[in-house]
C-alpha cells in the first residue's frame, strides 16, 4: 500500500459562490522511500497542495478530498490533535525561503529542540545532544556554537541546513521539500540537494520534491507529476516522461530547457501565463497557450486518463513518440 494516497484533493479560496480553485482534483500517490518530483510554473498549485497536506490552509481557504490517507490513516477524519501528532513527526516540510522561515527571536537550538520536545519529549540535555547530532548530519561546522546562534547571524545556505535539521528531527517517513533551493545561489543549491538526497537514502524516507527545475527532477526523482493551473496534467516515471512527454505542456517545458536549445539563437518559451481567477479559459485550461489546441480543446474539459503502461495524461490529443498529437 502506498505511504500517501491523495484522491481528488481540491483547495478553494474566495467566496463560496465564485470560488477560486488553486488546487483542482489532484490525485497523488507516493510509496515508501520514493522520490516524487512535482513540477510546474509559478501559480500551478504545487505549494498549495503541499500546504493542504500539512494542514496549513486556513479559513477562508477550503480543503476537500475524496481520500487523504497517510499510512492507512485518514487525515481528514482524525481530530486536529491527532493530526498534529503526525505533522512534524511523520510528515515534515522544508520551505522555500530559509531566511524568513526561522523565527528571528529564538536561537536555532531552541527551534530545533522544540520539534523534539513536542513529539518525543525527553530531557533537556537529551534534546541538546540530539540537536547537536542533527546539525552534524546536515553538515554544519561547529554545531555547539550554532545552537546558540540567532537566525540573523546565519547565511541562507546555513539557514536551510538548519531547516532540514528541524524537519528530519523526528525521523519523518515523508519529507516535503517546497522549492528548497530557489532562494539560494547555485553552488549552495547543489550542496543542499545532495544533502537532501543523501538523507533520503540513509533514512529511506519518501521525498516530495516541489520545484520548477526540471534538470533537478531528472537527476533526483523516481517519478514526476506535472501540474498546470492547479491540475495534474501528466504523471509517470522520470526517464519515460523526459524521453516521450505525452502532454503538450510537459513537452513545451522540456523544450524550454536551455540544454535543448544549444546552437539556437533564441530559447524556446511558452507564450502567456498560467490563468488566474478571472481569466480561466473554457475546456482545457492550457488551450490558449497550446500549439496543438483544437476546437474540442476549447470546448470540452479533458480528463486525466491512465494509459496501458500506467502513465497518466490529461489531454484530448496526447503526443506520440514523434511529438505529434494523436486525434
Amino acid at each position, binding site marked *: 500500500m502506498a505511504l500517501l494516497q491523495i484522491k481528488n484533493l481540491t483547495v478553494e479560496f474566495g467566496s463560496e459562490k465564485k470560488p477560486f480553485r488553486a488546487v483542482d482534483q489532484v490525485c497523488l500517490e507516493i510509496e515508501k522511500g520514493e522520490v516524487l518530483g512535482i513540477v510546474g510554473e509559478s501559480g500551478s498549485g504545487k505549494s498549495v497542495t503541499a*500546504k493542504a497536506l*500539512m*494542514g*496549513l490552509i486556513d479559513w*477562508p481557504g477550503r480543503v476537500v478530498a475524496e481520500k487523504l490517507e497517510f499510512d492507512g490513516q485518514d487525515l481528514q477524519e482524525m481530530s*486536529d*490533535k491527532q493530526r*498534529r*501528532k*503526525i*505533522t*512534524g*513527526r511523520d510528515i*515534515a*516540510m522544508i*520551505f522555500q*525561503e530559509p531566511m*524568513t*522561515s*526561522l*523565527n*528571528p*527571536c*529564538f536561537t536555532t537550538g531552541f527551534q530545533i529542540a*522544540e*520539534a523534539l520536545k*513536542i*513529539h518525543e519529549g525527553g530531557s533537556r540535555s537529551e534534546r541538546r545532544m540530539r540537536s547537536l547530532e542533527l546539525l552534524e548530519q546536515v553538515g554544519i561546522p561547529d554545531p555547539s556554537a550554532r545552537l546558540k546562534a*540567532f537566525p*540573523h*547571524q546565519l547565511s541562507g545556505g546555513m539557514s536551510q541546513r538548519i*531547516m532540514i535539521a*528541524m524537519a528530519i528531527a523526528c525521523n519523518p517517513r515523508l519529507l516535503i521539500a517546497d522549492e528548497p533551493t530557489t532562494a539560494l545561489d547555485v553552488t549552495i543549491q547543489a550542496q543542499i540537494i545532495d544533502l537532501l538526497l543523501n538523507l533520503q537514502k540513509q533514512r529511506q524516507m519518501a521525498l516530495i520534491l516541489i520545484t520548477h527545475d526540471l534538470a533537478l527532477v531528472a537527476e533526483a526523482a523516481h517519478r514526476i507529476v506535472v501540474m498546470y493551473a492547479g491540475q495534474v496534467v501528466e504523471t509517470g516515471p522520470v526517464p519515460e516522461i523526459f524521453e516521450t512527454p505525452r502532454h503538450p505542456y510537459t513537452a513545451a517545458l522540456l523544450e524550454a530547457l536551455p540544454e535543448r536549445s544549444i546552437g539556437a539563437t533564441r530559447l524556446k518559451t511558452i507564450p502567456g501565463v498560467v490563468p488566474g481567477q478571472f481569466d480561466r479559459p473554457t475546456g482545457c485550461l492550457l488551450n490558449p497557450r497550446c500549439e496543438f489546441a483544437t476546437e474540442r480543446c476549447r470546448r470540452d474539459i479533458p480528463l486525466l486518463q491512465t494509459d496501458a503502461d500506467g502513465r497518466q495524461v490529461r489531454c484530448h490529443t496526447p503526443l506520440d513518440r514523434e511529438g505529434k498529437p494523436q486525434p
Partner: protein
Amino acid sequence: MFSFLLKRIGVVIPTFIGVTLLTFSLIRLIPGDPVELMAGERGVDPVRHAELLAQMGLDKPLLLQYWHYLTGIFQGDLGTSIVTREPVVREFFTLFPATLELSLCAIIIAVAIGLPAGIIAAVKRGKLTDYTVMGLSLTGYSMPIFWWGLLLILLFSVGLGWTPVSGRISAMFWIDEVTGFMVIDAFLSGEEGALVSALSHLILPSIVLATIPLAVIARMTRSSMLEVLREDYVQVARAKGLSMPLVVCIHALRNALIPVITVIGLQIGVLMAGAILTETIFSWPGVGKWMLDSIYRRDYPSVQGGILLIACLVIIVNLTVDILYGVVNPRIRHNR
C-alpha cells in the same frame, strides 16, 4: 550599549531645554498674573501690585527671569510655590505617589486587557469577535475622558452605589504612609476594610485613565499580530505540529510585541495628560489635579516645575523602552 546610551542622553538634553522654554513662555502667555488672581474681584492697589510682583521677582525682564529659572534647575532648585511658599520639588513628590499609583494601575489594566484582546482579534480576523473588539476599542479611543468618567460615576457611584465618588480612601481610615501607594499602605496597616476601601476608590479612576491606552494597545497588538501571523516562520512552527495557541503565544507574540512595547512607552505621556482630567473628576490628590490648580492660580514655579518633572518621567520611560527593545529583539541587541 554604552555608546547607544550616550547618544540617547545626547538627544535628551535639547528636549529638556525645549520643555523649560515652552512651559516658561506658555504659562506667561495666559492673561493675568498671580497677584491679580490672589486678590480676586476686590482688585489690588497698583503700587501694592508692583511691590508684590517685585517680591516674587516677576518685575524683571523675561530673559533674566528665564535665566534665573534655568540656573536654578541645574542647582536642583525648581523654585518655591507662590501660593503655598513650599518648594515645588517637595510639593510634587508629596503628591506624585498618588498619581503613580493611579497610572500604574491604569497601565496594568490597559496591558492586561488590551494585549489579549488584540491577540484574540488578530487570530479571529474577520469574524464577529474581531469586529466586536475593534468596535469597542474605537469607541474607547474616541471617548472624551471627562465625559466617560462622569458616566461611570453616574452608573457605579450614584446609580448602583458600588464605588465611592472621590478621594483615595474612606475618611474613616487613617493610614500611615509607608510606600505612598494607598493600596499597599492600607494592606500593610492591617486595618479591617482598609484595603477594600482603597481598591474601591482606585478602580473607577483607573478604568477611566486606562481606556485610551487600552484601545491603542489593543489595536496595535492586533495589526502587529496580523502581520506576524503571515510570516513564514509561523507556518514553519505549525508544520512542526505545534497547536495554534502555542504558535501564537510563543512564536508570534514575541515578534508582535516589538512595536507594541514602543506604543506602551508612548502611552505614558498620554497617561500623564489623562491624569490631569481624571484626577480632577475624581478629586484624586495627585500631581495632575495639583497642576491644574496651579495653572488656575498662575503659580508659575509650580506649573513649570511640575511639567518639567513629568517630562523627565516620560523621557526616562522612553529610554527604558529603548533598552527593553534589545531584550525582546535579538537583532537590535547584536547590532549595537
